[in-house]
């Protein structure tokens, strides 16, 4: 029986428990709901959950633990002299698994009987060709150790699965029986169901946090690897970026960092004023009717995938800028369509709804009494906005801008298509440049050797970027919290 079948059985048991629990509760109350501590459905859910939860937890733990344990046992069967390091051992183990899977398949297709599969010997059978017949291709002939290990692997797996199946179903039955036994009209089913719900919520919250921790850890691990191969000083203060997989590459982050900073700066210079003015118009001047259709329209911008913005940069904005600032326009500042300015402008457009939507919410949260107070003193609408509403909303707006900045720093597609791929330190906004994110992509695409500094540098770049955006976000939150006006 496979794990999914077991899962279905457990679910079926839970469904049975649901019906039984409800029936038993109703019976103990003499058919009158008013005699019950909780509503009948709570008793039903209590029994169903008691059958489901412990059994499923056991199943999941078993599914995680069993392969690791078996792997360990089988590994010890392979003689020490067969391998020199862990890499070779893991190659042998993958062979073992492949053969074991092949044997499984052979049994399934009736090419081998169950007994044959666990008793065949390399001395008498050409395992490789027999497996090839049923479509399992092996890289080399199967030697004796591998075959015995594979057979042992299968045997252990079969025993493990059998025990697992028995235990899981037993757990489900035990949970079912115990909770049914407890079910009577005085049992507080509502409280126990709510505890399970709370556990579910806690689980969801911790999963999100644990994932973040996992991502950070994987970054840190590879970053440390990188710094073992490449000096940190050269990485952080090097002014040249010229990776070459042949060796002798210079991996200085400064040109990439400058590109990121420059493009983000232009993007913010576009997005902040436009977004802010749009927010002021929408929240203070627009009639409810105009606001009703203008706001969703503006937010459509936020729903456009960034790759589409990238195309817009490549096909529309780039050529347009070249025709004005390039050779044809007479200025000759711009050599090609891909430039810091192209990517910055388009990224700015992408960020407008981000800034305007957040600022709009913040401006709306400034209490009407502030506006009344100012209007009541004979201030005009624009004086009120400039001198009362915006200062009151400023901390929130600064927070919104910083969040937009961290989006700009992390943006990739627009840069790849709009800014070019040349890592250079230049002040001319019409030069092609590139950013940290774009280079992470180019270092990891293609045949990357994960032991070389040229590939590992991507993780160091990612880590640096992560630290910077994290710092920005923390700073934004800190500003919002510290300077937020407490209105009653």
């Amino acid at each position, binding site marked *: 029986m496979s794990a999914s079948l077991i899962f279905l059985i457990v679910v079926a048991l839970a469904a049975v428990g649901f019906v039984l629990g409800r029936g038993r509760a109703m019976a103990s109350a003499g058919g009158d709901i008013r005699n019950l501590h909780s509503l009948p459905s709570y008793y039903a859910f209590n029994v169903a959950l008691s059958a489901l939860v412990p059994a499923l937890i056991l199943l999941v733990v078993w599914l995680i633990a069993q392969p690791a344990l078996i792997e360990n046992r089988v590994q010890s069967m392979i003689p020490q002299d067969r391998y020199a390091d862990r890499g070779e051992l893991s190659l042998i183990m993958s062979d073992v698994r492949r053969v074991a899977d092949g044997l499984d398949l052979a049994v399934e297709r009736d090419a081998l009987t169950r007994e044959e599969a666990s008793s065949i010997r390399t001395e008498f059978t050409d395992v490789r060709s027999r497996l090839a017949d049923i479509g399992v291709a092996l890289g080399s002939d199967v030697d004796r150790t591998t075959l015995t290990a594979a057979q042992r692997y299968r045997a252990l797996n079969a025993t493990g699965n059998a025990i697992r199946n028995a235990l899981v179903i037993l757990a489900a039955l035990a949970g079912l029986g115990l909770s049914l036994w407890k079910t009577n009209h005085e049992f507080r089913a509502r409280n126990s169901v709510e505890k399970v719900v709370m556990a579910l919520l806690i689980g969801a919250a911790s999963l999100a946090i644990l994932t973040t921790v996992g991502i950070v850890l994987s970054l840190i691990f590879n970053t440390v690897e990188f710094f073992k191969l490449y000096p940190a000083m050269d990485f952080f203060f090097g002014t040249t970026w010229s990776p070459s997989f042949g060796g002798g590459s210079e991996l200085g982050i400064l040109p990439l960092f400058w590109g990121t900073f420059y493009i983000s700066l232009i993007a913010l210079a576009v997005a902040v004023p436009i977004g802010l003015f749009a927010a002021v118009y929408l929240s203070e001047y627009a*009639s409810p009717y105009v606001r009703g259709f203008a706001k969703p329209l503006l937010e459509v911008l936020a729903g456009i995938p960034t790759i589409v913005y990238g195309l817009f940069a490549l096909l529309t904005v780039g050529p347009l800028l070249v025709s004005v600032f390039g050779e044809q326009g007479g200025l000759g500042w711009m050599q090609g369509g891909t430039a810091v300015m192209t990517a910055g402008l388009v990224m700015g457009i992408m960020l407008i709804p981000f800034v305007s939507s957040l600022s709009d919410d913040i401006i709306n949260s400034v*209490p009407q*009494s*502030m*506006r*009344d*107070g*100012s*209007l*009541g*003193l*004979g*201030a*005009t609408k624009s*004086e009120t906005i400039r*001198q*009362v509403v915006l*200062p*009151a909303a400023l901390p929130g707006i600064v927070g919104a801008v910083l969040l937009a900045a961290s989006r700009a720093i992390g943006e990739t597609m627009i840069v790849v298509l709009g800014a070019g791929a040349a890592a250079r330190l230049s002040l001319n906004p019409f030069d092609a440049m590139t950013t940290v994110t774009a280079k992470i992509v180019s270092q990891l695409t293609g045949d990357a050797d994960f032991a070389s500094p040229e590939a590992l540098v991507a993780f160091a770049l990612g880590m640096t970027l992560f630290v910077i955006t994290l710092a920005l976000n923390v700073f934004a939150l800190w500003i919002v919290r510290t300077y937020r*006006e*407490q209105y*009653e």
Partner: protein
Amino acid sequence: MYDSPNSEAKIGQKAIKISANKVQVYYGDTHAIKDVDVQIEDKTVTAFIGPSGCGKSTFLRCLNRMNDTIDICRVEGEILLDGEDIYDKRVDPVQLRAKVGMVFQKPNPFPKSIYDNIAYGPRIHGLARSKADLDDIVEKSLRRGAIWNEVKDRLHAPGTGLSGGQQQRLCIARAIATEPEVLLMDEPCSALDPIATGQVEELIDELRENFSVVIVTHSMQQAARVSQKTAFFHLGNLVEYGMTGQIFTNPNDPRTESYITGRIG
């Protein structure tokens, strides 16, 4: 409907500051104020009393055209300030509000320093010629708002950090700073404790020397304590208007009597 000719003669000594004739207010289709006629005198405290939803706050907000900020609100009739119709097209509501200041139910200091809160109006209207001039206005307003002694050492601390009663006096001082002729107060003490209320009431009494004060209140004791004239509103109508003492001791209209004695509300 009005008070007796006898009391009219006594109060007739003071000039009429605001005169409202046949004022109607509509919120969309709702007729919120019906046919209100009232003469508000200069250098007098006039109290508007009445049950919730009777239109007293709405009428108050008509007097400085704060209702203009509400889209669905429509005002008909005539309101004269010193003989000029404030709803005339030539009148700029912004200028009008500088002349007819307003203090709101909840203290609403701006999230600025105490100094900047007071200086806000004078700066907007260009009342100060120099920094020293502005300092003078701020000090004078805070003194008239009876809060100078409490804040003189921390003029640059945020106004939102004051206690509720101090905040409300700050707001009154802020309204005074623009040198208004009339001061409208919409339940200025409803968010304050009895001690702060006492301080604000004392202040209102002092303000009478320089301004015409109109106060909306739910507290009849407060109306009796601070006002010289009282208007009773009920269901959008002005039921009775007269000397405070007379309204509270010998009202002409049975509805006024019922309200004052707590039978309707």
